[in-house]
């Protein structure tokens, strides 16, 4: 059965509401409007305004309220419209949610889930399009996940809610309309990376919105005789080094694809870990494909030029091979 990413997110929310009365959803226009990306459509009608709470435009306030509610027995899911807006709530996420357990000597945990949209591709320009999830992945005390598939869009919410610590979920805007044949949606995990395509010649490491591009590049490269292994990171924090290193030790080459900017990027982190853990297995320098270092522009051709594209991935992979594939 064809299921869209949007439906998967929606169903995950609905099932979470059904399974656990402590679950509440808070955010801007999650109720009457049905969610900016329509992920919570119909939930207000089914579960009522107590549990599906439209908030004022107070990101700092309602994320902090989510933290307080999580501390005191609820299982809140807080939706922030886009990662750009989440900067208004960054204080509560970093200074409170992530730190509370530690600075209280382990007395309090914050079982909070924060969902937000990330990424570019819809001509939303420089204040709605960025990929700042690496900033969150920098912070100890929270978990950061990026479901890239329909299965994970559904499957990660359950374990995220069950987790005693704050989990931030990044849903790439370009994924909501994607769909896949899925027999049944079931909980997955929020701990391991996944090999989405196995191959022998080079490891492509991607997550979120870049996974599809990496898989497209892998298909294209297979025609040229280069057999790519594609890893979907799924979890940006804590990072599953083992899956990455195991793959690189097999393929001896790696290209990291990250829609965030290159400087100080998550791609850089992956590359560093490959150097640390698999240096002597490398047969070529590790390469990366990131966004151009500009605020994402509005014009379609410029926006596309700024983002990692399949062709750029193909070129980067080919660059790791010399005369022969």
């Amino acid at each position: 059965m064809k299921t869209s990413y949007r439906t998967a997110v929606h169903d995950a929310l609905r099932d979470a509401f059904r399974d656990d009365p402590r679950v509440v959803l808070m955010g801007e226009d999650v109720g009457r409007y049905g969610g900016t990306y329509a992920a919570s459509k119909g939930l207000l009608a089914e579960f009522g305004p107590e549990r599906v709470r439209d908030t004022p435009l107070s990101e700092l306030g309602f994320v902090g309220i989510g933290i307080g509610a999580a501390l005191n027995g609820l299982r809140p899911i807080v939706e922030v419209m886009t990662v750009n807006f989440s900067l208004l709530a960054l204080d509560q996420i970093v200074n409170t949610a992530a730190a509370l357990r530690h600075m209280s000597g382990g007395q309090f945990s914050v079982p909070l889930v924060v969902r937000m949209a990330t990424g570019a591709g819809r001509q939303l320009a420089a204040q709605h399009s960025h990929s700042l999830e690496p900033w969150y992945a920098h912070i100890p005390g929270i978990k950061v996940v990026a479901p890239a598939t329909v299965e994970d869009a559904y499957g990660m919410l359950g374990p995220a809610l069950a987790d005693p610590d704050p989990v931030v979920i990044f849903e790439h805007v370009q994924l909501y309309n994607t769909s896949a044949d899925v027999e049944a949606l079931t909980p997955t995990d929020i701990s391991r990376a996944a090999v989405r395509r196995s191959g022998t010649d080079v490891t492509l490491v991607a997550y979120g919105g870049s996974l599809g591009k990496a898989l497209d590049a892998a298909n294209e490269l297979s025609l040229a005789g280069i057999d790519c292994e594609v890893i979907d990171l799924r979890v940006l924090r804590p990072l599953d080094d083992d899956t990455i290193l195991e793959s690189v030790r097999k393929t001896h080459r790696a290209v990291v694809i990250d829609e965030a900017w290159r400087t100080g990027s998550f791609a850089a982190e992956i590359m560093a870990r490959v150097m640390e853990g698999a240096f002597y297995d490398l047969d070529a320098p590790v390469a990366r494909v990131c966004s151009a270092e500009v605020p994402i522009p509005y014009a379609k051709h410029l926006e596309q030029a700024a983002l990692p594209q399949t062709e750029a991935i193909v070129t980067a992979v080919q660059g790791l091979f010399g005369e022969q594939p």
Partner: protein
Amino acid sequence: MIEFKMPALGADMDEGTLDEWLVKPGDKVTRGQIVAVVETTKAAVEIECWQEGTVSELIVPVGETVQVGTVLATLAASGEPAEEQPRRRSRPARPAKKPASAPSGPRATRTPPAVPQHRRWVSPAARRLAQSLGVNVDTISGTGPQGSVIISDVEQAADSKTTLTKPRTKPAASDRAAQMRKSIAAAMGRSKREIPHYYLVDEIILDAALSWLIARNAQRSIDERVLPAALLLKAVGVAAQRFGEFNGFWRDDGFQPASGVHVGVGISLRGGGLVAPAIHDVPEKKLGELMDDLSDLVARARSFSLRSSEMSDPTITVTNLGDQGVEAVFGIIYPPQVALVGFGRPTQQVRAIDGGIRIVSAVQATLAADHRASDGHRGALFLSAINELLQEPDLLEK
């Protein structure tokens, strides 16, 4: 332009593997300076350069196995201009074994053309694989990005190597023993095929020599004591100086006398095999000096670290199998030398001397000589001369 070639370190050496360069382009080389280490079937040998100049180019890279006579490097003789090229400065100069005589400021902007601008690009994985397969990455061409050497290049090289060439890594002990066996076989086979040996024996009474030695050693600490072997060596050396036809080489259908007397000493190696490296200028050395040289040489031979001149320079060989308990040894000449003196085990003998019967210590001295270069008559005189020298050991002291 001077060509520095892979030296022939012995008749049994056909090729050598360059283990290490101890100089780099631009280095000044003085006569006798050790410039490289070459792995032979017998040992890793330090190779001296006998010409002065400035290294222009290292032609044979580390790890490559080349035939004797192959040009390893070129040197510009003093005064001869080296080819101009900006010297790269990014890489720190490798520390020289000896303090560099060059000024410490910026070096002359001279370098040979063949030196690449960066270290060979080899992927970390390829480098590691090459090491485990014994492949020299410097000799294989890279097909990776920017011409780097990658795993598949190493694998290919390893495949062709196993069919074409010998392993280039330092041979393991058992490996080395097998290789040495082969080269001894080649050299001794050639010797027996080519050299018409004749053999002479003489009994040398050692009473004078041994009692002189005991008295000498008794006054000295253990580090200064001298073994009879050193005395025998000195006697052979001095005699060979007088009998030039036993000291030299048979080459190109003719005898070439050697200018100095460099006595090759047969040293058996633990675990099998044998080398006969030279002690230089034996007649000129004091006995103590000779003993030190001998001791040092044995140690180095057994740890496989000999110098090229020691391997290639012997002009005559002494073999001393006395310790093994045999009475006499009839040796095979080490080509292209023309003579080999052997000593057996000193034994107590009853001898009629000056009309009386005495018990003496005697040793069987033998001479194996190349009949193309000398005759039995001269051989007998040569052996007698050794005998006489050993009767007046104090003359051998200085």
